[in-house]
């Protein structure tokens, strides 16, 4: 198959989608069809080329675009291939979902900007994975940022959207510039923007670390690593759900890709310092725990999901950190394990987070609300959405035999190999991160019990929830695709890992495949069978059979009788008596109060006497410490500085003349 065709079909289709949207603007139904079908095709093409990248040797192509004497270089290797697969799956499901999601939206506003920017956004992500020179990379990277900004501010009448968009674009710009700095360092070594040359380049340790830090901060800012995560919880909630599914599901993974590409591939770990891995590991641990802790306290559904993305990025980064540490101490096979674990989690998270965001969109669509305190009992009005959403919740809570568990299991296995590195502080750091990972996993389960319980179960807390309705089959099937994949990836990990294995082979010339294959397709044995093994299929089979045994044992027992709820003899409950999102997370708020610094407001109205309470209002706001200690000071400093500059401009004409005069005198006295 022709390289260029293989590489470019996905991007070309995305481009054509963005071109088609304005063309069919007249009839919005047709417009939606054109957009979604083309996007879906583009997703399929991307997945196909990704597979090709994983299974076959690298392919390259050159386009006559870009800077003078430097055309656009494209390259499809294993790393790019893997992330293209990730992109492909999510794009397909998001496209199918959008068919149903956009229709009601089309009633009151033009979809053209949404369509154009959505497609260009996809194009940007595809392009980043394919780029093989710094300029191409940056162009597509920034294209990704800008278009996603436009998606965030799509409903720009709302103040919230504009605020979020501004913060997001600002941080994206800063991140982009940092990455640019990283590339500039690499360029300085060999005076070439081409990745092929950069790979070969030899950097002095100082410059290598410089590039590592610049790239790390730049990509970390996009990936949402704490404390650079501030934009996620603002931007994801306000974006249209199909967009936030892609942003949270894929875009932040593209940042992971960028990190791998620049730090592992271009700079090269062999040039790395020992502390790199430690830094990455620490960042991962902190974001995993603080991400989920903050997620637990949200009651805006999409905001909660955004914070949970921070957590999952943390888990992915922990895997990377372990891999970097092991690889620095020459345990390449363990490094391969680490990288496979984190890539597996990348794939998983892209699936279930996409699913959950689309589910949130469906809820928004069915119950017209994002505030969990207004929901409840949706499982009765929208059963299918609930079922699919439940799959997402179980997967993200890392419960066997679903996919989230596999990747966390692998990460734990990697962490447990820490004794191999003796005599470094890192070997003592790793247990901590393992503990953090465990804590994060447990808290995630708590968090998603809260989500599902409060949103879908109990009784409706508002009229809109009571009148919610199931979404159409397009949205359902859009969610069904990732849900199905969640189960499959949970049950057949070995096959997936055999595919992913191409990446460590490409990056550190070490394969995990042999070890994986040792136990056969049924057994997941990352290091050695006697060391650790896991067979999700059998787990599933046994537990299912046990369940069915228990079920059939008494199927012929007495029939079930439906009766009004007992509730300890208090049958007439009203919805306001049930636990809310806020009250569910109250114990944890109490336990971690020194992290949350909760600001509680309670208002109590009574008829004269303290016991005759008319009403009590209670609201609590949890702080994100990053704001207090990082962002607020920066903002204050800028304000102060700009004020100082403003003073300079308030001078009269004499003052300005005097300035010129002074400049002249100073220069002369300096130079002569």
């Amino acid at each position, binding site marked *: 198959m022709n390289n260029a065709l293989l590489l470019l079909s996905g991007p070309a289709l995305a481009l054509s989608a963005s071109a088609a949207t304005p063309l069919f603007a007249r009839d919005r139904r047709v417009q939606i069809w054109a957009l979604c079908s083309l996007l879906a095709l583009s997703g399929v093409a991307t997945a196909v080329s990704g597979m090709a990248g994983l299974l076959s040797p690298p392919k390259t192509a050159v386009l006559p675009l870009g800077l003078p004497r430097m055309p656009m270089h494209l390259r499809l290797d294993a790393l790019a291939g893997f992330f293209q697969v990730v992109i492909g799956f999510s794009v397909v499901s998001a496209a199918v979902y959008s068919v149903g999601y956009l229709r009601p939206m089309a009633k009151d506003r033009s979809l053209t900007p949404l369509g154009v920017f959505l497609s260009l956004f996809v194009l940007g992500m595809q392009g980043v994975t394919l780029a093989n020179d710094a300029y191409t990379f940056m162009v597509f990277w920034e294209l990704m940022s800008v278009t996603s900004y436009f998606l965030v501010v799509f409903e720009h009448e709302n103040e919230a959207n504009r605020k979020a968009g501004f913060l997001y674009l600002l941080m994206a710009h800063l991140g982009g510039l940092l990455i640019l700095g990283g590339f500039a360092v690499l360029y300085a070594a060999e005076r070439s923007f081409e990745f092929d040359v950069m790979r070969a380049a030899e950097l002095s340790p100082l410059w290598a670390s410089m590039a590592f830090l610049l790239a790390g901060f730049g990509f970390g800012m996009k990936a949402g690593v704490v404390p650079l995560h501030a934009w996620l919880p603002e931007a994801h909630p306000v974006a249209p759900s199909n967009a936030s599914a892609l942003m949270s599901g894929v875009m932040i993974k593209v940042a992971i890709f960028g990190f791998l590409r620049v730090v592992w591939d271009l700079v090269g770990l062999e040039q790395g310092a020992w502390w790199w891995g430690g830094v990455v590991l620490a960042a991962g641990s902190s974001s995993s725990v603080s991400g989920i802790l903050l997620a637990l306290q949200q009651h805006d559904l999409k905001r909660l999901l955004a914070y949970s993305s921070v957590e999952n990025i943390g888990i992915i980064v922990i895997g990377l950190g372990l891999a970097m540490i092991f690889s620095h101490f020459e345990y390449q096979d363990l490094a391969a394990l680490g990288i496979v674990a984190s890539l597996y989690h990348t794939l998983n998270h892209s699936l279930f987070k996409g699913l959950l965001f689309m589910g949130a969109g469906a809820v928004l669509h069915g119950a017209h609300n994002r505030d969990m305190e207004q929901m409840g009992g949706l499982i009765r009005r929208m059963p299918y959405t609930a079922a699919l959403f439940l799959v997402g919740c179980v997967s993200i809570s890392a419960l066997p035999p679903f996919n989230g568990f596999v990747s966390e299991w692998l990460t734990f296995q990697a962490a447990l190999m820490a004794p191999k590195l003796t005599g470094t502080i890192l070997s003592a750091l790793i247990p901590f991160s393992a503990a953090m990972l465990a804590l994060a996993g447990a808290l995630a389960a708590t968090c998603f019990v809260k989500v599902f319980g409060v949103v879908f179960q109990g009784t409706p807390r508002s009229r809109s929830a009571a009148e919610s309705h199931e979404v159409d089959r397009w949205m359902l099937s859009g969610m069904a695709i990732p849900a199905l994949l969640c189960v499959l990836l949970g049950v057949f990990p070995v096959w997936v890992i055999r595919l992913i294995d191409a990446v460590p082979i490409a990056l550190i010339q070490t394969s995990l495949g042999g070890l994986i294959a040792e136990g056969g397709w049924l057994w997941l044995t990352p290091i050695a069978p006697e060391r650790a093994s896991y067979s999700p299929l059998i787990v599933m089979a046994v537990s299912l059979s046990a369940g069915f045994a228990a079920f059939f044992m008494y199927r012929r027992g007495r029939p079930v009788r439906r009766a009004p709820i007992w509730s300890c003899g208090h049958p007439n409950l009203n919805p306001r008596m049930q636990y809310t999102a806020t009250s569910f997370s109250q114990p944890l708020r109490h336990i971690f109060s020194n992290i949350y610094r909760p600001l509680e407001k309670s208002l109590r109205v009574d008829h004269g006497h303290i016991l005759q309470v008319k009403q009590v209002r209670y609201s609590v706001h949890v702080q994100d410490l990053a704001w207090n200690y990082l962002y607020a000071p920066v903002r204050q400093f800028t304000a102060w500085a700009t004020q100082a500059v403003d003073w300079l401009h308030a001078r*009269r*004409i*004499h003052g300005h*003349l*005097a300035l010129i*005069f002074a400049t002249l*005198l100073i220069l002369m006295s300096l130079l*002569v």
Partner: protein
Amino acid sequence: MISAELLKQLLSLAAALFLLTAFALLAQRHMHALLRWFAVQGVLLAATTALVAYAANVHELYISAFLALVLKGLLVPWLLWRIVIRLGAHREVESLVNIFATMLIGAALVLFAYYVSLPIQELSFVVTRNIIAIALACVLIGMLIMITRRKAITQVVGFLALENALFFTATAATYGMPLVVEIGVAFDVLIAALIFGVFFFQIRSTFDSLDLKHLEVER
């Protein structure tokens, strides 16, 4: 034909006189006196130019000498004079810093200019670093006038004094600029003066005063 030595001394004398006029401008309290001294400076400039033209018999320089005399010595001062009369501008020259202080600063500037031009070694047999130093000093003093004087007109005078200093440098420090340049510059100065005139009326008609503090519009 006069000897190089004599020419040199004459030029130094002219430079000294020029500096004197600059200080005179700095010292003035009355608008009319200011304009008078400005005219004097113009004439002195023309004289110097003519001197150089004669000494080195460069005939173009006669033209620029003539231009200097007409423009700087007569036309521009006269224009300004007319404007002052027409607008009945205040007779007092109001200064932001008191005159004595400005004089001191001016003296300091002369020293500074001398210090700056020290490293320049002899350029040609006529031009000495002292002349460059003095020219520099005059430029700086011109700016000083612009900075310290409040009224629009005095600012303009400072500006023109600065221009004079430039011309002086052009003639005394070199054999004068090429004719094209001379004429062009003179032309520019003329336009500038005209535009000044236009401005005064615009300012006057909008602010009914020439005090520059009215020009500070809040933005």
